[in-house]
């Protein structure tokens, strides 16, 4: 069974540009989570989907971040426009019975 996959693995963009990160959860997992780790800091929760609905988006930093999960399968996280402080590693996780399985992360660098 394939694990959680994320694309791209790395992204380097300039301040003001737009970037879209993608997460493919484990097949059949209704719960999907986004987390972010800024360099030198803890991994922080961003939001939680149950199927296509946002269950908890309390961790989203501001309205430059837009997460979607159309059809309840894969999810995208768009940052528009990107700022320097958005640099970090973005993790996705999915779960079906409580335990969260994490993807390898997308390393985003904003120059």
């Amino acid at each position, binding site marked *: 069974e394939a*694990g*959680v996959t994320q694309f791209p693995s790395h992204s380097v963009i300039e301040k003001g540009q737009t970037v879209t990160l993608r997460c493919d959860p484990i097949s059949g997992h209704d*719960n999907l*989570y986004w*987390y972010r780790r800024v360099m*030198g*800091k*803890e*991994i*922080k*929760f961003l939001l*939680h989907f*149950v199927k296509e609905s946002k*269950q*908890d988006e309390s*961790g989203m930093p501001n309205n430059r971040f837009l997460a979607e999960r159309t059809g309840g399968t894969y999810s995208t996280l768009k940052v528009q426009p990107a700022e320097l402080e958005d640099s970090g590693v973005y*993790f996705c*996780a999915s*779960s079906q019975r*409580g*335990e*969260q*399985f*994490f*993807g*390898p*992360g997308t390393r985003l660098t904003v120059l």
Partner: protein
Amino acid sequence: AQSVTQPDIHITVSEGASLELRCNYSYGATPYLFWYVQSPGQGLQLLLKYFSGDTLVQGIKGFEAEFKRSQSSFNLRKPSVHWSDAAEYFCALSNGGYQKVTFGIGTKLQVIP
């Protein structure tokens, strides 16, 4: 607010030596506690978890952790470290179920020959 503290950012141990990674938490009740490991280029892998019951929890790769309520601690241990254990280790907690996970800052483990 709930939080997790990992006081050691970097730890270096010799291969074959024992290991203990410290973790303290702040939470109103008994949380669900986890240890994750991230090897380079890999995702976060769950080593072990504590929900209730026996306070000594066995995990994968020969790791164990002990929950101590009186000390609000959940330290990770391994009796003999292998070079392949070099990675970053995260202590974490949640309210349970499908709730978000709160992570500590992580401890990078270096293993020397």
